[in-house]
């Protein structure tokens, strides 16, 4: 099944890689890796207890023996085989679970990142910054890379049949990391480009400004400064002072919140008021519909509706 998992992911990326990311002019990409990752987590939940016990034992021993068809290993290894990345995620899980029961398991966090990324790409406006998700994912990537380094070291030291398994699975781990890293980078990039495009609007609108992270806010102010300085030096200083303002309302680029988007409902919701509170709408879980972005902006933030 591991091969199946990566084959589908590979073919997915093959079809998508032809569209090089180019600012906001991407056509909307319907994305299904989130589904694959979610499937992973379902498997995990069944074996969670087992993994908990076995993982805590394995912590002391050399734990990075990759899955294979080695029957003399325990069930634990069997889990490795089917959930190679998931199992290591479980491993992170355990440490988290010991500290704080309320944190989401890692595969869920990655799904959340993917959903946030998708929404951000397709929304004309800038959405709230998912700081915990980003932090967790960054942490997880770092942790995983350390693990890979350890595995590679171990590879060069020992000489056994397991080496082939280890080197193969190192490859898979690396690929998985690249994919997750791509999603993370793309999420941050799309936000940055939106900020650049709508910078004057964001700086003047309280709501939009608050959906940025601290670093992004700093970037936004500095970027606006830089652009204004460039304008000033190039021509503004030479024209009459009354006309030197570039932040007049009609000159500001605003995100088009009236744009139509395709949405998918995640929950049953009755009596949603849309069109300036003039119409009622009932949402059923799983239904797909088209509407103006403005009507559902709040629901997207809450997670009850997703853009596709």
């Amino acid at each position, binding site marked *: 099944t591991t091969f199946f998992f990566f084959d589908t992911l590979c073919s997915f990326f*093959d079809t998508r890689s032809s569209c090089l990311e180019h600012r906001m002019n991407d056509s909307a990409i319907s994305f299904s890796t989130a589904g694959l990752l979610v499937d992973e987590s379902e498997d995990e939940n069944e074996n969670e207890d087992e993994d908990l016990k076995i993982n805590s034992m394995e912590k002391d021993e050399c734990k990075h023996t990759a899955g294979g068809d080695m029957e003399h290993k325990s069930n634990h290894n069997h889990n490795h085989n089917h959930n190679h990345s998931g199992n290591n995620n479980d491993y992170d899980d355990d440490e988290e679970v010991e500290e704080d029961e309320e944190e989401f398991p890692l595969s869920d966090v990655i799904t959340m990142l993917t959903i946030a990324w998708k929404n951000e790409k397709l929304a004309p406006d800038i959405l709230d910054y998912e700081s915990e998700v980003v932090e967790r994912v960054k942490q997880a990537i770092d942790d995983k890379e350390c693990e890979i380094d350890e595995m590679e070291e171990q590879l060069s030291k020992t000489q056994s049949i397991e080496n082939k398994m280890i080197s193969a699975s190192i490859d898979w781990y690396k690929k998985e990391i690249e994919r997750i890293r791509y999603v993370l980078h793309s999420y941050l990039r799309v936000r940055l480009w939106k900020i650049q495009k709508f910078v004057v609007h964001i700086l003047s609108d309280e709501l939009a400004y608050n959906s940025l992270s601290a670093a992004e806010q700093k970037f936004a102010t500095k970027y606006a400064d830089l652009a204004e300085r460039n304008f000033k030096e190039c021509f503004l200083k030479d024209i009459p002072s009354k006309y030197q303002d570039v932040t007049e309302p009609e000159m500001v680029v605003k995100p088009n919140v009236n744009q139509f988007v395709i949405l998918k409902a995640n929950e049953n919701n009755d009596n949603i008021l849309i069109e300036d509170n003039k119409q009622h709408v009932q949402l059923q879980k799983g239904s797909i519909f088209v509407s103006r972005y403005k009507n559902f902006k709040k629901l997207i933030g809450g997670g009850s509706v997703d853009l596709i």
Partner: protein
Amino acid sequence: MPKNNVSGTALYGQQGVQMLTNLRRAAWLPQYDSDGVRKVIDEINELYRKIHATLMAAKGVDTSEPEARAISCSVVVHHNALLRNKRILCAYHRYRMDVLEDNRWEKGPLLSDFARNKLSSQEQLYFENYSKLLNEYMRDIDVEITANLAPPKELKQEITVVANVGDVQTSSGSSMQLLRNTRQFVNVNDVETLLRNGHVVKTKH
């Protein structure tokens, strides 16, 4: 160039529009048209003087008289022509800034000589400052977002080195030598910027 059969107020903005069409015609960017910009600025200032003069001369005129209509009409036309010229200048510079930002994302923080020739000194300064700002942001969030611009296809790729690149640091710490006309099997993210710049190409089989 003003057309011969057009006269009067329709002349305003011609220079600006000419600059904008030049923008569209160029492959990347045309040479920074400082003459054109100067002419448009002069036009703006001239319009402003006209407005000022009209208003000065109109002091004391009662707004109910028919004369007032003529005066306000002239002021409105000049004012709007002025605003149009200003918008043209903004659009011209904004477009060039956008192209520069794209360049930073696609090709990295260095400008090629070809690009440098087409820019005014102000624009070169803008490019450097933008690059600095971007680097600062990336340091703040501790993520290098200018890497991984495309969805990952394979982990390793065979490449042919086109330009003499020399030593390159890989992410695992070791360095590899990339000499011209050699082929190597490498991790894609190590050579990503080189691929974008064209110094290194994927081997075709």
